[in-house]
């Protein structure tokens, strides 16, 4: 009997070293990652079973910031639900806002003018950029590179300034109205967007990518960490950058173009392994594609009105409200939510920061939805998290969670 045969592997590390199965009858350590943990970037808990420093299994507890949006929506007039959608994926609220507007416009049969559609595309792509910037830079922070986060933060601030120009708010934007936008692109906003997509963001992205893309430490931390196959990702309901990192090029913007996305020429970045590094690279690629879309939209911005001529649903200009009886009546009726929507059943999907954001709306012909369901991409793909972490260490689990971009608001609705 040699010495080696006497060693019984009790941890995954030893088992790996000896190439033997782990002995089953020993204790696991239970470790709580969260609910409030700097690495979760939001409030949700992961109860992990650890074998030494390897994760054996995990269970997530979600719902810490559940705010019953679907229930609240059943009592609110349609336009008041926009503010609820802000608070789902708060890193890219304009996408949720316009997704909701598109849903109601589909139900009401409103045709949005081309100019408004282009402005929406610009704002949605800026939102996508800010969402991806945050996700990727936080991944940098979680793997030990803080300065990348500070580089891109000033760019996100510029995007927020553009939001302020467009709607007055920064985070929970409540942007747009049924039938168009509530205000036109101002010259200041155009100048700011031009500067962002032509000068500052490409330069900062160059620096950011130079810092990470071929960085030995970053690659060691992310390549082949938390990979998922395309097939498995599809079974788990992945959409968005996380799915595309696994090699499936499903993008709602291309598959079912909304808001004139068919007018723009852009690529869908895809990865191979679906690991943390691929997710990072796909998001970086999408930032460049989004900039391309914004440039095209600004260049070809059509002239014309920025809202549809829909008196029943679009608030009249304030000047008219004071002078014109009809306008006053419509203003009052819209604000009080007295205008009924037709009965019907609509599903509208938009490509959010994390994937397909779906709105399933059932209207019974009243002032509020009879049933409204939000398909939240984070909620659906987060269930794959324990499977992706299996056999890895806590520090890998943290990197995987950052790269999945789980937004607590979207997770819990």
């Amino acid at each position, binding site marked *: 009997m040699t010495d080696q045969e006497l060693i019984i592997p009790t941890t995954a590390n030893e088992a790996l070293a000896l190439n033997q199965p782990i002995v089953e009858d020993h204790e696991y350590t239970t470790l709580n990652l969260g609910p409030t943990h700097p690495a979760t970037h939001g409030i949700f808990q992961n109860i992990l079973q650890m074998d030494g420093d390897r994760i054996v299994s995990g269970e997530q507890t979600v719902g810490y910031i559940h705010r019953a949006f679907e229930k609240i929506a059943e009592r609110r007039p349609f336009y008041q639900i926009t503010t609820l959608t802000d608070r789902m994926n708060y890193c890219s609220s304009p996408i949720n806002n316009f997704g909701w507007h598109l849903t109601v416009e589909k139900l009401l049969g409103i045709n949005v003018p081309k100019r408004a559609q282009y402005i929406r595309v610009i704002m949605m792509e800026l939102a996508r950029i800010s969402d991806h910037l945050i996700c990727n830079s936080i991944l940098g922070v979680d793997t030990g590179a803080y300065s990348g986060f500070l580089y891109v933060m000033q760019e996100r601030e510029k995007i927020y300034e553009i939001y302020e120009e467009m709607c007055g708010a920064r985070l929970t934007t409540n942007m747009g109205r049924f039938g168009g936008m509530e205000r036109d692109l101002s010259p200041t906003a155009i100048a700011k967007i031009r500067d962002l997509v032509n000068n500052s963001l490409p330069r900062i992205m160059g620096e950011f990518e130079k810092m990470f893309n071929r960085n030995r430490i970053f690659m060691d931390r992310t390549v082949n960490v938390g990979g998922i196959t395309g097939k498995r990702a599809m079974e788990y309901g992945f959409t968005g950058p996380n799915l595309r990192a696994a090699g499936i090029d499903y993008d709602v913007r291309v598959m079912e173009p909304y808001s004139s996305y068919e007018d723009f020429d852009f690529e869908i970045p895809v990865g191979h392994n679906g690991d943390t590094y691929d997710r990072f690279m796909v998001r970086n690629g999408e930032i460049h594609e989004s900039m391309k879309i914004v440039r095209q939209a600004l260049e070809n911005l059509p002239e014309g009105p920025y809202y549809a001529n829909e008196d029943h649903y679009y608030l009249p200009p304030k000047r008219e409200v004071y002078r014109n009886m009809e306008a006053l009546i419509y203003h009052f009726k819209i604000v009080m939510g007295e205008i009924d929507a037709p009965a019907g*059943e609509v*599903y509208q999907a938009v490509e959010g920061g994390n994937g397909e954001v779906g709105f399933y709306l059932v209207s019974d012909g009243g002032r509020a939805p009879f049933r409204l369901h939000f398909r939240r991409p984070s909620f659906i793909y987060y*269930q794959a998290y324990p499977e992706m972490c299996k056999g890895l260490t806590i520090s890998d689990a943290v990197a995987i969670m950052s790269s999945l971009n789980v937004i607590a608001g979207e997770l819990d609705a």
Partner: protein
Amino acid sequence: MVSNQEVVEDIVAHFGEKLFNLEEPYGLLTVTTQRENILEVISYLNDHEKFRFTFLTDITGIHIPDNKGAEFGVIYHMHSWENNVRIRIKVFLSENDINIPSMTGIFAGANWMERETFDFYGIIFTGHPNLKRILNIDEMDYFPMRKEYPLEDATREDKIDALFGR
């Protein structure tokens, strides 16, 4: 690219009377079936060689108290990425016998979607590996999205119905 018409012809030829209420609201093909057939319908669409509805977009519930005998609905949205066509499948259940087969055997992602539906409507998904509350607290003893729980206090008197239509 497959049109809704082709899908309808195929599934009607295959299932016949098992599918009813074929509609197309806002361009999305909608069919209704019964609890006994739902597993069969979904696996058929998932395994179909031509249509390949391999992606389960969403599962959700609905409560329609006035629809006597079929108060609760479960709504499935499926998507074929290869053909870019969507289908919506509905099943209605009586409040006295509120259970339906789980889809977790076919789609791993159905797990949380079904838990969410259970959490809010109390619909039992038979065969689900871990059917417990997900967003609400475990101690909750009612299903909050049901219509018998109005959001606003019904006894409130400071709002005049005649003026504001509430």
